């Protein structure tokens, strides 16, 4: 694990992967898997982090932290299909093209291509709105 720590500290993905290959993971504890997942993320070894989380969860089904890691880092999963289009997306994009320059540094709320609210931060923007359903909230840099 020491080599993993060093590679993670250096942000060296390749060294981290090489060090991980030297470890017999079948002999490792749940705590080692959990630590290795965090170190892999720190090293930028995201695919390895996912694979370690999946393997750790499989080998240690009783370990709730590994189960959670496996769930959070799992490949994307489609949960709903046939979501209808929203034609207002073009109107909102047109508003941004045309008017964004006048709102730099602010958050804006747009609906159907119309400015609904504007504020210096997202929290204040939300406070001005009765609800946010279907509203585009974005910061203009």
């Amino acid at each position: 694990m020491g080599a993993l720590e060093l590679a993670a500290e250096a942000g060296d993905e390749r060294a981290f992967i090489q060090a991980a290959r030297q470890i017999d993971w079948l002999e490792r504890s749940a705590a080692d898997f959990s630590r290795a997942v965090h170190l892999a993320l720190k090293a930028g070894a995201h695919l390895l982090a996912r694979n370690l989380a999946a393997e750790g969860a499989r080998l240690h089904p009783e370990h709730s932290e590994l189960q959670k890691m496996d769930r959070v880092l799992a490949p994307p999963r489609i949960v709903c299909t046939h979501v209808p289009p929203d034609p207002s997306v073009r109107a909102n994009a047109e508003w941004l093209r045309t008017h964004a320059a006048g709102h730099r540094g602010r958050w804006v709320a747009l609906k159907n291509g119309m400015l609904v609210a504007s504020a210096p931060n997202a929290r204040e923007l939300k406070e001005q709105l009765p609800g946010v359903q279907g509203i585009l909230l974005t910061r203009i840099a």
Partner: protein
Amino acid sequence: MVLRFADGRAFATGACPYLDWFSPERRETARIFISVSIGESQTQAMVDTGGVYFVCDPEVAELLDLDTPSLGNATLLIRGDRCEGSLHRHTVSIVAELGESFEQEVTLFVPRLAYGQEWHLPSILGLQGCLEFLRFAVDPATNTFYFGRLD
């Protein structure tokens, strides 16, 4: 269907307009910004095929009241900088103007800012953990982003 393979199978089932800048005045290097639906609302996010996860602007995350499984503290390299934050699982969808869209459960990273620190990047749609199983194509002539799911 919005785009098809030569044999008639769907390549992309949805299309949406994109903006190619983050700041209207600075006109930095061209990017691809599309609207995504997250929680009840929508926001703009940048497509980054060199990135990972859905990196959520911390102010947007604050509005979402995230109540999803979280890994607690994690450190990520984002565009060359180390960034502390938390990893979650959340549903995100690209907002289609034409065709149809779909909801995906993705890995979402929320940067944690120090007191007084500001987040200067947009929300980012990375490849691993977010876009990795989507087909997508870009038409720069019309600023159209086409997307579809794998069969």
